[in-house]
């Protein structure tokens, strides 16, 4: 789903739920999602930095063993 498709769907759903005030926040979220998806670190997903909820791996300083 592209961000544009997502935004259309989200706005329609919000209107169906009688939340018209969500239109502007959803548009703002869409901009942030575009930014997130276009980040260059997504290009290297095959060799991605490990997703690490506990900071364990990311605590390693460069060069640390």
């Amino acid at each position, binding site marked *: 789903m592209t961000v544009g498709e997502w935004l259309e769907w989200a706005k329609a759903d*919000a209107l169906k739920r009688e939340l018209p005030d969500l239109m502007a*926040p959803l548009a703002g979220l869409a901009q*942030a999602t575009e930014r*997130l*998806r276009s*980040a260059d*670190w997504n290009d290297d997903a095959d060799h991605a930095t490990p997703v690490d909820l506990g*900071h364990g791996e990311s605590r390693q*300083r460069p060069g640390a063993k």
Partner: protein
Amino acid sequence: MTIADAAPRLAKGQLKSEKLTEECLSQIEALNPKLNAFITVTADEALKAARDADKDIAGGRYRGPLHGIPVSLKDLVDLKGIRTTAGSLVRASHVATEDADVTSRLRDAGAVFVGKTNLHEFAFGTTTEDSGFGKAHHPVDQSRSPGGSSGGSAIAIATGMSLGTVGTDTGGSIRIPAAVCGIVGLKPGWGEISASGVVPLSRQLDHVGPLGACVTDAWIQYNAMLPAGRQTTGVPAAASLKGLRLGVPAGYLFDQLDADVERVVMSTIDTLRRSGAIVTEVAIPHATDMAAIYLHLVLGDAAEYHARTLMSRPQDYTPNVRLRLEMARYVLAEDYVRALRGKAVIAHEVDRAMDGVDALVLPSLAIPAPPIGAVTMPVKGGPEAVRTLMLRCTQPFNLSGHPAISIPCGHTHGGLPIGFQLAGHHGQTPALVQAALAVERAIAHAG
């Protein structure tokens, strides 16, 4: 009065906890109607605890520098027998059956709890305007925000309503109000202080920590919040500024600053350089992605926590927070996972930026206290959303988990406080505090 001033006098019997607690309660009585810093005041319990502390101290059972000290708790931290509202009518009748871990540790250290402080509802905001118990007001200018989400806690310290306080920080919620109100706020490293018994916003970004009138007060509280085996005695010595290696993360984190904030922060960095610190520029290459990463994580986590009550009691949320939570429900799983990866990237880059330096130094936030109701504020580069500006300089260290501290470094031309932030290495909060003690001293000397 600071904890550092009061503690030795309490220990020697020159000052009674009951008197100190009465003074704090008097401040609350006088100022809370205007500032709305407290949601619940536990006066009777506090006075009893203070009298017990006086008896124990007189009987030779002194427990340490928090014994008999009046302390407040952000009202998402459980205090047994007292309601924990999280600043929301959703939890208006929720009474804690146990102390939070952090409460229990402070209680063991002899702290006297004077009450529960106001906050941005469920800690989901930076201004303490959206609270089910009314907005809080800045102690210097009541038309302005005290920052948030731990806004009530910062007011309490700035006005002497309590000498210590516990806050939480998911994107800056300890450091932002500390900077805005002219006090010290310490966000320890992620996971250092237990968050058990604390209402979450995002467990992977939430940090529990102290706010105080000075770095020493923050240290005394932080130390008491640690597990018993990790606590130390005494206050660490200030680091020597001569040779202290400070990294300035130039670029994004300095790009959109209020003119007064930029002037005062750059002047502080100059002061440190003249005092012998070695200041170098460092880079966080993906800093511009941090806001998007943070947003998707905090929204995803908050959506999960609030899903049930958003369905059953939507009318009990404040309108703005409800809207943000409703928006949160639209975050896609694939984008949440992208944000998790981005978080790891940022953590790695902050580590690399800290390679070869003792601490990073930067503004605590880009603007001084915003007017209540302001949507945007003018900064270098044009007007920008208040929420974005307030989180900009603090959220890197929530994503990365590094310890960070905000200390006051000056004022705007209009007299509003400005905060200076230091971030330290993982697992080295004591070293960060030592650096902050040195910087605090240099700022005082220069002022």
